[in-house]
């Protein structure tokens, strides 16, 4: 809430103007009855000129009032839009800094709903809320002071129901808030389900899960309905409550005031005036009820947004890092152990945290090539992810040129170490823009060159729009191998000093693989290269090969040394190599 106030504070002058316009609207609105009275007096006096004058004044007041009302409404509501806009940008800017553990915890669809539905709720709260929270007290103060001057006793008596109302409201608002929160979570869950089912639509179709998914969706909707109606049940009493309080105080005025009139303590005129003031109070107070439920909903929503804001990540990118670090390119893992569960307090499984890596000690000298092999789940990708601080070692450290990477500026580090992740992920944009993803200033020639090195020439030639072809969400409209090679081109255009390829050619046929490896080898010559692969062809020429087994280094050496050992490495590749010999008949 304090965060929100600071946003509102930013627009205080516009709010002030908006509220000024609101007051002007009210003032102009109040003068019209006076003018009408004067006009009627003029009619009674058969004074045509005066009548004409009054009619003109009324028209003038109407037009002015209209303009003021117009301003007051859109200025205040647009402040809400502006706050929403800023909040959305700030949320995004914050999200961009959060690490993978955050994105694993919250689903995309859920996050989406926070940035869409919750933000809307917050905006509605500040649009209406500010208006209502500033005008209502004003009305109260004005009315109360007049009422007190008329009869303090009657005032106190007639105000009593409102005091009770505030007390009840205080208690109700808790459960409105809780139920609002549940409604927001409900729609969040629905959004998340849509997001997930449709992202996996190819699985849904292949396994004819349409009905199964629809049933799950229906269930989410059903519980959302229940949550919505549970909220409606309380919100439904809100208005009657407020009107009830207003009515009760009218009753008090009527009965108690009536008795006072009968006892000649106050005049009938006082009583009528009292009543009209209470009526004047009723409207803003009623709208206050609406505002309260908006407020509660907004507060619940803000709570969900605050959860995002309050998540801090160890790997925050600093605002102005150097573009790229000047490094020789020596990479070293020193006694590195890593567990995905070490700093996750939620999922303690009782037992000691399972380590994905244990006691890793590897040094890659500048310009050399390190290959990491090992069975599925051995920890190869984990080792590589440590280099860019997507994850941080649980113990030990990773250094580049002898400096702990935690001491390097993160932006600089990530521009120095370029990774082709194992899962090729592209964005629904043109091929050219996907290739220039990491370096928006890359020239056309650089893009074409990168595509060429990645062996994309013939694929691009087949597409009528060439590099301007839009690839669909996640790169959906490309073949598996094309996607992988675009991610390689993306890396080349990024031009990092240290190159990391995590199984980057697994979906590529051997002929293309060979060509790509060859041109890639030339273009990364002199740079430290780290490759992960399951294919002998990719790893055999590495300066050092390490074999990971269940998170530890089981073997290390060159291809020949490892083959001679007849250990895990030989076991992994002997079949590939056996066939190789067979073909040399």
């Amino acid at each position, binding site marked *: 809430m304090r965060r929100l106030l600071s946003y509102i504070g930013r627009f205080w002058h516009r709010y002030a103007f908006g509220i000024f316009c609101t007051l002007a609207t009210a003032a102009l609105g109040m003068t019209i009855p006076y003018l009408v009275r004067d006009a009627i007096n003029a*009619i009674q006096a058969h004074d045509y000129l005066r009548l004409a004058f009054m009619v003109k004044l009324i028209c003038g007041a109407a037009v002015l009032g209209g303009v003021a009302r117009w301003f007051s409404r859109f200025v205040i509501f647009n402040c809400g839009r502006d706050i929403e806009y800023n909040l959305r940008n700030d949320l995004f800017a914050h*999200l961009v800094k959060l690490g993978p553990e955050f994105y694993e915890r919250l689903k995309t669809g859920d996050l989406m709903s926070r940035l869409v539905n919750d933000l809307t709720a917050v905006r509605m709260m500040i649009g209406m809320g500010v208006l209502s929270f500033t005008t209502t007290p004003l009305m109260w103060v004005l009315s109360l002071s007049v009422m007190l001057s008329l009869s303090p006793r009657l005032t106190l008596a007639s105000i009593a129901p409102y005091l009770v109302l505030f007390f009840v409201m205080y208690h109700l608002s808790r459960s409105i808030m809780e139920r609002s929160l549940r409604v927001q979570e409900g729609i969040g869950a629905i959004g998340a389900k849509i997001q997930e089912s449709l992202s996996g639509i190819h699985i849904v179709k292949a396994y004819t899960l349409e009905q199964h998914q629809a049933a799950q969706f229906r269930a989410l909707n059903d519980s959302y309905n229940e949550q919505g109606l549970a909220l409606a049940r309380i919100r439904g009493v809100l208005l009657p409550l407020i009107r009830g309080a207003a009515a009760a105080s009218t009753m008090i005025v009527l009965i108690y005031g009536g008795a006072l009139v009968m006892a000649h303590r106050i005049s009938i005129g006082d009583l009528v005036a009292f009543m009209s003031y209470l009526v004047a109070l009723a409207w803003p107070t009623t709208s206050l009820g609406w505002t309260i439920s908006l407020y509660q909903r907004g507060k619940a929503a803000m709570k969900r947004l605050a959860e995002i804001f309050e998540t801090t990540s160890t790997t925050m990118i600093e605002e102005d890092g150097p573009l790229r670090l000047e490094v020789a390119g020596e990479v070293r893992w020193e006694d590195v152990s890593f567990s995905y569960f070490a700093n996750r307090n939620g999922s303690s499984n009782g037992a000691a945290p399972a380590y994905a890596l244990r006691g890793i000690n590897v040094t890659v000298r500048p310009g050399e090539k390190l290959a990491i092999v090992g069975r599925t789940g051995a920890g190869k990708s984990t080792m590589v992810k440590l280099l860019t601080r997507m994850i941080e070692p649980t113990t030990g450290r990773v250094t580049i040129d002898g400096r702990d990477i935690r001491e390097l500026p993160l932006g600089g580090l990530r521009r120095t170490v370029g990774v082709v992740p194992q899962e090729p992920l592209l964005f629904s944009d043109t091929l050219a823009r996907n290739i220039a993803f990491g370096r928006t200033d890359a020239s056309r020639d650089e893009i074409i060159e990168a595509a060429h090195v990645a062996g994309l020439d013939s694929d691009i030639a087949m597409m009528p729009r060439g590099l301007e072809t839009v690839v669909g969400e996640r790169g959906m409209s490309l073949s598996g191998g094309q996607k992988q090679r675009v991610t390689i081109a993306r890396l080349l255009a990024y031009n990092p000093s240290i190159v990391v390829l995590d199984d980057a050619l697994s979906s590529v046929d051997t002929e293309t693989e060979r060509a790509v490896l060859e041109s890639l080898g030339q273009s990364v010559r002199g740079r430290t290269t780290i490759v992960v692969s399951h294919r002998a062809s990719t790893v055999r020429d590495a300066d050092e090969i390490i074999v990971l087994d269940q998170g530890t280094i089981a073997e290390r050496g060159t291809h020949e040394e490892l083959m001679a050992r007849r250990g895990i490495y030989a076991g992994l590749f002997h079949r590939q190599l056996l066939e190789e010999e067979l073909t040399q008949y």
Partner: protein
Amino acid sequence: MEVGREEKLARVHELTLLKRVWSFVRPYRLPFWIAVVLMPLNTLFALSQPYLVKLTIDLFLDPRHRPAPAWLHPLLRAAGTHGLLAMGALYVMMLLGEFATFYGQFYLTMMVAQYSMSDLRTALFNHVERLPMAFFDRTPVGRLVSRMTTDIDAISEMVNAGSLTIFNDAITLVAIVVIMLTFNARLALWALCAIPPLLLMVNFFRVRARVVYRDIRERLAALNAYLAEALAGMGVIQLFTRERESCREFDQLNLRARESLMLANIYEAGLFSSVEALSSITIAIILWVGGGEVIRSLIGLGTLVAFMEYAQKFFNPLREMSQKYTVLQSSLVAMERIEALLEEKPLSRPAAPARITDRRGSIVFEHVDFAYRPGEPVLKDVSLTVEPGQKVAIVGATGSGKTTIIKLLTRFYDVKAGRILVDGVDVREWDLTELRRAIGLVQQDVFLFAGDILENIRLGRVDLDDSAVRTALARAQALRFVEQMPAGLREEVHERGANFSAGQRQLMSFARALAYDPRILVMDEATSSVDSETEHLVQLALEQLLTGRTALIIAHRLSTIQSADRILVMSNGSLRESGTHQELLARRGLYYRLFELQYGAPDTAE
């Protein structure tokens, strides 16, 4: 993440849209109409209260003038303060009546809106799920989420705030006009002068606002689609230090959305305040015209004052309606987008699905042509035959169309020319569900649902017990690591399986197909991210499983396909070679070259 791509929608008539909304509200018409009836009742209860107050004052508090008939006077005198209490009691009753009707009407409308919109959402979801893959190729998921959440919310607002009160307002409006006309037709016509400018304004607003609301929906959808994609690809954005550019692009979209939203506010506020101003101007007109008549003694002053009261009341429903009109417009635009979605055609279904007599699992492609986009042929005259029980492998360069063959086989897309027969029947004549049930598919694009491992293998088939799941996992060599997990089969799977290694994900999706126990097993690069030892073990396990089943295998690592009965070599969208491993090697063609490249000594290449 293209910034600024927009969709163009065909315009649909408003009435059609409203009819569509009504078709979803219709099942709940009973509560709907009850709420409609409660509304004027509520007004009645509310209006009776000030009248009671007036009566109380007149009857009890102001003894100077008693409008009550003479016979009542003794009664009133006798009643005294009791009378006051009686009036109080009556007042409370009216109040309770008001609350009860309000609550009933409020709850019922909420219920109607909630249920009908939830039906709409579910219907939409069902519909979208069944749309052909080509639809998903061009529609980002983020947009679909917007349609099914925020767009429906906009309609919901109309259903729960607008539609009901509009009846009430309309009735009030007509009633007041009738009263005014009978009261003084001439003055009434003058008062109705306000109507033409109002209509002009509404029309102006209608045209402008529709455009603005369309922009809003479109821009918000684009913003949200961008957001969804950025969130899903955040890892890549961070790896490539694209944070700042992404923020800038997001800001651009955000700005564009804000621009239309603000414009809409300006229009809305304009409409609302014009109605207000018009109401005061109408008073002025009545004063001027009526005042003249009073001065010329044509009518009495009382008539004029009363008439002004009515003119005021006449604007109340108009004011309400003008506010609802904006809600209506924005929800119509939302409905327009939903309508466009509903009009997307699912794959044609055979009128009467063919009865499959011979279920042995044969596949025939006859001169198949296919293109994802017109003018870009991807498959050219592909013919192939897979006999029941045969294992056929497809190899070829990347992008040569292997995966496309499979997508056509399972009818993710329809062929452009030629036909595909499964068990002797054209796939277009199969019942789609049955066709896909017959084919177990391991797709190149691995996808796991958030949940746990068990659910991901079972995929909703409750008949599949733990042991069957274990068997499938064991065959796919996935049981080993699954059992190492603390929770075993119940180990949590995060969105897209993010907490597993790529190879593990692939093995689990393989196990999923094996658990499916299909007649035809299709494997598209099913073990590309798996080490060769595990891959070999998978193959051994497959061998016994595949006896008697038809299998179509796509792989780049030739070691995985050598044992196939037949190998098809694809190049550039057509089939070039076909034969057994030995035959193809002997032919020294494309296959030979692939093989040599993979296994031949480096120096013998080229």
